[in-house]
């Protein structure tokens, strides 16, 4: 048999054929395409994605006071972040000023008591629309300390702004805009916020919380 192969077949044909045989299997394998798979998920999940709105703005209202703010972040709507918020509205100047500080909450508060104010106080001042009372409070880059983060055992840095309107003398709500920048880059689109008055002496860590405009 060997002699037959050797005598009838030019050696270079034999070599080329063997090489082809050896390599031929490589073309049979499929290739993972994770990018396409990711895009496919975006497409098929699109009908399930919700774009919350700031609700109807009816006019400027003076709702100056101390509030408990809940921010329901789109990455996990069931674990809102708590902030103490102080609002000051100047209807004459058509401005609204806000100060914001995170509130320690379970389960990542560690040794810090629930309800303790943690991290920096962030402030923002912005014009209040004289016709409908809408505003956009841009706090710039804020850090939510791990003690106030109910979603992750990590501090979160975010470009953080609140869009909404002065709904009633004791209520305001709207949408959160911006992006989480650390630990990962995650848009805040789809996130909502709302405030409810915080009574003197009330515990901001356990007081009832609103997180979105009424539907």
């Amino acid at each position, binding site marked *: 048999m060997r002699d037959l192969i050797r005598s009838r077949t030019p050696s270079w044909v034999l070599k080329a054929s063997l090489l082809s045989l050896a*390599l031929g*299997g*490589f073309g049979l394998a499929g290739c993972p395409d994770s990018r396409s798979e990711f895009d496919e998920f975006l497409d098929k*999940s699109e009908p399930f994605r919700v774009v919350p709105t700031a609700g109807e703005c009816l006019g400027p209202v003076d709702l100056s006071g101390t509030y408990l703010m809940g921010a329901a972040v789109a990455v996990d709507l069931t674990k809102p972040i708590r902030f103490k918020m102080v609002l000051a509205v100047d209807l004459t100047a058509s401005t609204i000023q806000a100060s914001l500080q995170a509130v320690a909450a379970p389960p990542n508060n560690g040794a810090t008591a629930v309800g303790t104010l943690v991290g920096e106080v962030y402030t923002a001042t912005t014009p209040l629309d004289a016709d409908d009372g809408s505003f956009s409070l841009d706090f710039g880059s804020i850090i939510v300390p791990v003690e106030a983060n109910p979603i*992750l055992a990590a501090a979160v840095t975010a470009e953080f702004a609140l869009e909404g309107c002065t709904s009633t003398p004791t209520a305001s709500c709207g949408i959160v805009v911006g992006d989480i920048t650390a630990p990962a880059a995650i848009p805040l689109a789809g996130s909502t916020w709302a405030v409810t008055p915080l009574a003197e002496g009330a515990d901001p860590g356990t007081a009832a919380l609103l997180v979105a405009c009424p539907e």
Partner: protein
Amino acid sequence: MASRLARLSARTALVGLFSCALVVPSAPAHATGLLVARFGGEWGHPMSDDLWSIYYNPAGLSLLNGTKLVVSGSLAWRSFTYTRDPGAIDDILSDPAVGAGTPEGDGVLANSGVSTLSNFVASPFMAFGTNFGIEGFGVGVGLYVPIGGQSIWDPGTKRDAFPGADDAPVRWWTIEGTARSIYTTLAAGYRIPALRLSVGFGLNVVLTELDNIQARNVDGADTLTANGRLQEGRARIKASSVDLAIGAGLLWEPVDNLFIGVSYQSQPNFGEQTLKGDVDIIFGGGPTPESTRTKAEVTQSMPDVIRFGARYGKPRCWEVRAFADWARWSVLDEQCILNATVAGRSCKGDAPPGKIIIIPRNWTDAWGVRAGGSWWAAEGVELVLGGGWDGTSVPDEMLEPAFFDGEKFHATLGAKFTLADDKLELMVEYTQLFYPDRDIAARGRVARDPANPDGPTWSDIDSIGLREAVRVPDAAGLYEHSIGVVEIGASYRF
């Protein structure tokens, strides 16, 4: 006509090869952990005197005795069924509109049950070596894939309310992906006649690639919905690195035709590797952002490997051999994916700065042993028979379907034909790997908030020693796995 066919065939094969780069069966290996080195089949071992020794023991190049080219391929089929235990689900919601978790009924079906994979893939080994006419000396260059592989899972059942379901329950670990290290090696061996001892050394340039897409939530749980809205997201990682590694070995012939070999392959990068790339992430049910991408880096450690064994026989008549390998898989404790733009990023602690995903591994060192023999049925016709056992590097509590490994037994039958005045060798063999099923119990559930024991739950990672920062869904369930490998190859001596 014959020449056109031959050229066309070779060209088609090469296009197929390089359009998909180098491919191999996924992580579950032909050896331990992610090790898939099986090139050379029964001839690939630390006592080899052929070009396979470039990887297994470069000392063997000293016995090359001429100039030689080898091209071979491992053509493998792989069948894998993972049946996820519903008890592994983090939280099952009786009211789908309230809370975060997996709604009863279709939700549970979307998050548990059967996932299947049937892949047919191939992996090349190419090497060229020569002794430059110097007896007892050999130099070789080679290209091959000793670590890792790829997998593409079959689609699951579509569920109207859960857009992620058609990626099957396995999606929490992988939907499709690649994890591999491609080696380009320059190696040399020299035999010291007086000692009947050969020494060898190899330098490897290692291209490591990681490309995977999986379902993922920001907290590492397997939540499908939150208050009735979509919660399940996706994370895709694509990263690579180029690192150096070395191989070294000794091959001793204390008496004629008895060869005892021992070799060492270092870790790629001699320790931890840092792969650079990017991640795409979408979490939750908010609107699709303009960009989902973040620059990322991945740190991981692959093992160093020690091989040793012996062979004895009568040349071109019979031979027996036995060998073993030990891989230090305990170095693979985590695969840590960090945001590369965060200063001070770290994988350590309870709140790692810049963490995107940390996948806990906590693998253990693993052994493999093989034995076999050859019998020359006729001049130029060598028949081989072999078998062996490999342990597993993945403890039960760390087992998951993306990087699967299990204890395995294997049996091999093959032949090598020597033709054209001993210049041409053709080898073919088949190996069947038998994986006993692995049935992993669920971790159990605990309250997310210990202060609210009747509230939402998730799987108990504390009981298996994991910290919250490395939470991953519970991969409990039944793993049924098998692989068959056809090795074909040709070598030509010039």
